[in-house]
């Protein structure tokens, strides 16, 4: 169960923040991850500052407060005694989690379920994407065209989001796609073979929609699976 601690300190906000940056912050930056700190936000108030610290557990917050190095840093800072309140966190959703959810929807709703109308909901009109195999992808219409191209080549396409990592307004998804090669692809006649391909998609989100993307997938593996390139055996160059 995560907890939110709220500490209010009276005084000149700029002076308080400067003192903390000099004394507490260097130690806290090193120690906080060890005790399960999730985030720390300092805001200016009418009579000082308020610090919102989010912790993975109440125990972690206590152990951080009892850490000798932290106590020493607080003594050096000579901060006025804070007014403290703690809260149990009932629900929390970060921008990163939202970004991951958008990526998951592309895999599950667009690529797997074939709901192409969802593309307009997920991609901004200004979207620009790029892949080495498919070149530039312009706008939601360009992404729709990309999906249609692969759907026409691979019957029953299914894509799963294997790993999702979000940082700031960027999100990375590693994915696995499966399908049956029943249509022409890159000039390769259909083979009826099932293929499994992995890839990575890096995307930037702004105002709740994808605005930029870079994708790469195992194109060599795909060509090997449909028999266009020898698999495993040495090939002449």
């Amino acid at each position, binding site marked *: 169960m995560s907890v939110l601690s709220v500490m209010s300190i009276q005084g000149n906000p700029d002076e308080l923040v400067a003192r903390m940056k000099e004394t507490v912050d260097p130690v806290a930056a090193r120690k906080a991850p060890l005790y399960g700190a999730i985030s720390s936000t300092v805001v200016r108030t009418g009579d000082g500052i308020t610090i919102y610290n989010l912790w993975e557990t109440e125990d972690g917050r206590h152990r951080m407060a009892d850490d000798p190095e932290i106590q020493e840093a607080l003594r050096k800072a000579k901060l006025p005694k804070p007014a403290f309140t703690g809260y149990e966190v009932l629900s929390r959703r970060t921008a990163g989690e939202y970004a991951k959810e958008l990526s998951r929807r592309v895999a599950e709703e667009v690529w797997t379920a074939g709901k192409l109308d969802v593309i307009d909901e997920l991609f901004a009109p200004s979207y620009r994407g790029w892949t080495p195999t498919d070149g530039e992808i312009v706008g939601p219409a360009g992404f729709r065209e990309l999906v249609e191209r692969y759907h026409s080549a691979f019957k029953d396409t299914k894509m799963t989001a294997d790993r999702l990592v979000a940082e700031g307004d960027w999100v990375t998804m590693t994915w696995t796609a499966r399908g049956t090669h029943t249509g022409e692809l890159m000039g390769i006649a259909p083979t009826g073979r099932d293929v499994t391909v992995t890839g990575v998609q890096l995307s930037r989100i702004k105002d709740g929609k994808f605005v930029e993307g870079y994708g790469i997938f195992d194109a060599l593996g795909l060509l090997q*699976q449909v028999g266009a390139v020898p698999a495993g055996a040495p090939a002449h160059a």
Partner: protein
Amino acid sequence: MEAMLSLPLPGHMPCERCGASVAAEDAGTHTCDEERWLDFAVFQLRGEVAAFGDALHGWLETTRGRFEVFYAERTRTDR
């Protein structure tokens, strides 16, 4: 001088017999699903299947074909 490339094996390869995608680690234990095998076999013959339809329609337009249609229809009616 001829250069050589040693291409890595992909993580999955289609089964030669049934076309199913098989993970490299399962290659030794894969068992073909008969329905998948049938789908794959029919897909490989799709050209011949389509050509048979065309050839049949062409033959039915010949004198012999028209007679066979007539005779079949007559036999069916007689029953």
